């Protein structure tokens, strides 16, 4: 099955980002395709490369980057939501991309499921 994920909250502050990641990981493990993670609202702050959590904690931006690298998951941040919150090409992780809401519409259309995580 082909799955899109919509993530509406930033890293660490809410569990949404962790739940989305764990869900994506499990879906891939079960042989499904995770097509894209679309970041909206505060979710766009998931992909800033300046993130520097304590060493014994998870690195959320790095984790999304790896999901992109290893499994071809597109990690997309909405441009309008990003601009408001200071997320730009200058601060984004390698596998992250800033794009429009049209892309989310495509994701909603081309996937079997769109699963939302937020607060």
């Amino acid at each position, binding site marked *: 099955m082909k799955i899109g994920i919509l993530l509406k909250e930033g890293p660490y502050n809410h569990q949404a980002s962790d739940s989305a990641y764990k869900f994506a990981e499990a879906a891939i493990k079960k042989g499904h395709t995770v097509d894209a993670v679309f970041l909206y609202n505060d979710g766009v702050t998931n992909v800033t490369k300046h993130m520097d959590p304590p060493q014994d904690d998870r690195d959320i931006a790095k984790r999304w980057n790896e999901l992109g690298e290893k499994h071809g998951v597109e990690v997309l941040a909405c441009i*309008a*939501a990003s601009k408001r919150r200071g997320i730009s090409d200058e601060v984004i992780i390698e596998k992250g991309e800033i794009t429009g809401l049209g892309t989310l519409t495509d994701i909603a259309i081309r996937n079997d499921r769109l699963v939302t995580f*937020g607060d």
Partner: protein
Amino acid sequence: MEDVKKIMHVMRRAPHGSIYTYEGLEMILIMAAYEQDLSVAFIGDGVYALKKDQDTAGIGIKGFAKTFMALDGYDVEKLYVDKASLEERGLTEDDLLVDVEVLTSDEIGKLMNEQDVVIPH
């Protein structure tokens, strides 16, 4: 048309206290260009988004209530409002900025179940 998807946006937050309703509306306006079968359900505090007479000058935040009136021009015509949510808040259709279809929770629940995609805001 086989590849037209039924997509419902669910508005459940009061306006201004958080951005979810406003950014939800921005999403709907973009999706409207893609000729899918869009609808918007206002339930819980989401019904407040449609309240007349909102004037945000005093809080320094851009108002967006009137943008709901533009939805019609984008061919987003399926606006459903939960009757119980309205009544619980002492509101009637006359308090709302736009023409909507007032339905019971069960009727909206049934519509939700027909959707290919439900997006919460």
